[in-house]
């Protein structure tokens, strides 16, 4: 990212609620004008982190800096940070215009200036005719836009959005993704965006942090998270994954991963990326679309492939792709996605086929203390 300048620095922030640790030594930087996603399952502490940025929760320890200034002691109404609430929190007794003008009136700006900015904001969200309407009479999508306008009209340094799209139906949600992205680039404000939808995070964010149990598992661009996950948790959270866990062996300078009696070839570059060694616990992650499927006899044993014989047990047609679930004699299951019509007519449920992946397509992740043994069901092998 060129021209990246740090705007927010979260330093070693911890927050407990009783015995739950909602934020566990979180350290994170967010850049100016960046679209940053906080991604994680329910209860992992995303909202808590956002509320600490807004000033509604105080960290038990650690600091939050904005433009290099410590924000910890600054009250919410003094922070150059605005939040868009998950429930929108529009004031029901004020019309759309007054809702949007509310923040500007608190700053004591001249009436003409307020009017100009509110009208611009209404224009920006494409609802110039709704100024006089009460929030109660708006649709979900309209409320969402008004809430957005109310927050950005203050021109904060950072806009915090807590699951802004969660309450919308699927079609509108996909539309609003593009709309939010457009708005963000237009106003140039940094967005910190909470979601538990990995697709949302991948399509919208410049960078994302994957969280679990109050900890940050990895920070990176969507591409980095997808193609170079730092651990098994991230590999499984972002996208679908076939997972084979085992122990690394180096035989005649070739890296292999042993699971039970079976040996799988592993990319040496991947082993070095994590600094793994002979005997390390690790897992191979293969994305379904990186797997191939072929007729049983067609693939010769090659050094740059891992291939297994398996039986097709399920086929799903997705329009643009076919999904196959295959199972080997040992009970390993693989999830294979084939784009287009290619390969589709050739196989039926019950056929014996060859499945596999190029060694360089196999992502290696260390099995550290986060070694998750619950891969998405029906897709991946159980780790043994």
């Amino acid at each position, binding site marked *: 990212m060129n021209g990246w300048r740090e705007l927010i620095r979260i330093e070693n922030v911890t927050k407990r609620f009783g015995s739950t640790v909602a934020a566990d030594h979180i350290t994170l930087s967010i850049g100016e004008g960046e679209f940053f996603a906080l991604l994680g399952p329910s209860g992992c502490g995303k909202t808590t982190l956002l509320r600490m940025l807004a000033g509604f929760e105080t960290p038990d320890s650690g600091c939050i800096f904005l433009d290099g200034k410590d924000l910890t002691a600054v009250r919410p*109404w*003094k922070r150059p940070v605005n939040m868009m609430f998950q429930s929108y929190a529009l004031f029901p007794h004020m019309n759309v215009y007054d809702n949007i003008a509310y923040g500007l009136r608190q700053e004591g700006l001249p009436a003409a200036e307020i009017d100009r900015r509110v009208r611009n904001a209404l224009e920006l969200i494409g609802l110039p005719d709704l100024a006089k309407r009460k929030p109660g009479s708006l649709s979900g999508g309209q409320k969402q836009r008004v809430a957005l306008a109310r927050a950005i009209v203050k021109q904060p340094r950072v806009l915090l959005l807590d699951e802004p799209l969660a309450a919308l139906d699927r079609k509108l949600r996909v539309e609003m993704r593009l709309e939010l992205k457009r708005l963000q680039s237009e106003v140039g404000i940094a967005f910190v965006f909470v979601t538990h939808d990995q697709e949302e995070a991948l399509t919208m964010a410049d960078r994302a942090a994957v969280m679990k149990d109050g900890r940050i598992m990895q920070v990176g661009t969507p591409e980095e998270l997808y193609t170079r996950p730092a651990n098994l948790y991230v590999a499984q959270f972002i996208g679908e994954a076939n997972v084979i866990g085992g122990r690394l062996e180096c035989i005649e300078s070739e890296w292999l991963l042993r699971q039970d009696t079976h040996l799988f070839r592993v990319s040496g570059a991947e082993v070095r990326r994590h600094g793994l060694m002979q005997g390390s616990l690790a897992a191979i992650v293969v994305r379904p679309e990186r797997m191939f499927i072929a007729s049983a006899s067609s693939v010769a044993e090659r050094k740059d492939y891992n291939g297994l014989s398996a039986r097709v047990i399920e086929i799903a047609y997705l329009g643009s792709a076919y999904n196959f679930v295959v199972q080997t004699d040992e009970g390993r299951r693989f999830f294979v996605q084939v784009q287009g019509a290619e390969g589709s007519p050739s196989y039926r449920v019950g056929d014996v086929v060859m499945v596999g992946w190029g060694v360089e397509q196999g992502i290696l992740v260390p099995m550290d203390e986060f070694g998750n043994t619950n891969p998405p069901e029906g897709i991946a092998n159980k780790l043994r």
Partner: protein
Amino acid sequence: MRLRTWLRLHSTLVYAFLYGPIVMLVILSFNRSGLPTAWGGFSLHWYRELLHNEALLNAALNSVLVAAGSTLVSAVFGTLLAMGLERIARSLVLDAFVFLPMIIPDIVLAIALLSFFTLIELPLSLLTITVSHIVFNIAFVAAIVRTRLSYFDNTLEEASLDLGAPPLKTFFNVTLPLILPGVLAGSLLAFTISLDEFVIAFFTAGPSQPTLPILIYSMVRFGVTPDVNALATVVLSVSALLILISQRLGGTEGFF
């Protein structure tokens, strides 16, 4: 079908039992003869008579003063109390203590207050009645405002803080307008209760400034004059109107 007929008859009787005497009183207030036994024709005579009864009018004014004063104070502190109970100290024990004055027998409260005023040597007057009425009115206002607050979405306040309004401004801009119907409903209820409260007022009133119920009681002992019927009808109408408005404003569910 038969069951429904019985139920209808039953409810008719209950309502007749409850409201029959009141209806009688209203009718009698328009009776020219002034006697409960003989109908002398429709007339507003006793209402005109009432306008010249200085003692009754004075007592009515006293009642209104007490009701207004205690309502005003209760509205402010009852609302604050409700917010404290809802936001800060969520405890069943505290709740019970706050709402106790609503259910404690009036006579107990009356004796307690009288002993208290004697103890601190506060001479009995309209002030002592007002203070006494504040005791239970706060509880009524707090109870009603609380039901309203429990529906209140706290993120609205956070949104206001976030948009740059400090807590006090947030209270007046966002919280108060949204719970105002509850505050008004509670106040109207408090006003109504205070207006015709007898037992506590009787114990805590000074000798020279009776409230309306006290004066009527003392008159009844020497025989009812028919203008009391007229006055009772006026009080009844005002109370009913206030309760109706308070119900319309909402927040009094479960009280009527």
